[in-house]
């Protein structure tokens, strides 16, 4: 069980990293892009708008917790 937990923790650290909120918000932004595209709306602009905001939010969280 300990090895399984360590394996899971390794992949969590590897993929998600220090701030899980980044992964969650990126997933939400990609899902919103897909939904807009499926509805026939131009959606290319959504991620370029979302990504700087996500990065800014993550930086503020890192600075606050330092």
């Amino acid at each position: 069980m300990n090895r399984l937990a360590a394996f899971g923790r390794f992949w969590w650290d590897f993929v998600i990293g220090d701030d899980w909120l980044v992964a969650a918000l990126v997933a939400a932004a990609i899902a919103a892009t897909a939904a807009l595209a499926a509805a026939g709306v131009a959606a290319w602009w959504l991620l370029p708008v979302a990504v700087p905001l996500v990065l800014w939010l993550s930086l503020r969280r890192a600075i606050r917790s330092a």
Partner: protein
Amino acid sequence: MSTGNTFLVLSAFLASGVEFVEALTIVLAAGLARGWRSSLAGLGVATLVLAVVVVALGPALTVIPLQGLRLVVGGLLLVFGLQWLRKAILRASGYKALHDEDAIFARELADAQGAAHLERAGVDWYGFTLSFKGVLLEGLEVVFIVLTFGSAQGSIPLAAAGAAAALVLVAGVGVAVRAPLARVPENAMKFAVGVMLTTFGIFWSVEGAGADWPGSDAALLGVLAFVALFSFALVRLLRRERLEAVPA
């Protein structure tokens, strides 16, 4: 070579170079403190494990439909890129200490010299494990980048060529100087890699989600310029903010 392929080779080269510099520090510390035989054995076994991962996953990735692959790879690269970028911005703006290969080398060396000696099959176990773990962990990131970049751009060999060039350069310099490569501008490289990973992440996620870029592949240059600009702006903003917070 197309814009996408040029970025592919450059990104794989830079990202792999950073990881190889970190792996070299650990292999050197293990070699100097515990003997080269153990350290090089750890390096060799870790390289074999990484080769198995590449052989197992590489062909599997090429049979996944491109749009689905770009969606998953784009999302992963975006999360990965934002992690790199966040750390590089925090370091560049002074909120986080710069990565110091000399200090890491000294710490690893002291730990390795102080550890108990346990020999198995003529190999010092501590030196082997230290070298093996270091190369495997840093190497996994290289494998991830080479496979994801290569498969989403449609050319794993090109990405592998970028990584191989970085390996030859770092290993060559490492053997020549027998010291950690402390003069490598590591944070600048990490910043550049973060910008590239985030750029590819945005570009492929949008395509994978079924949306179209105005200007098709040429939009990649625009995304790159945009990501670089807002990253530099964030460094300037945070640096100014930090300096204003420090009492005169």
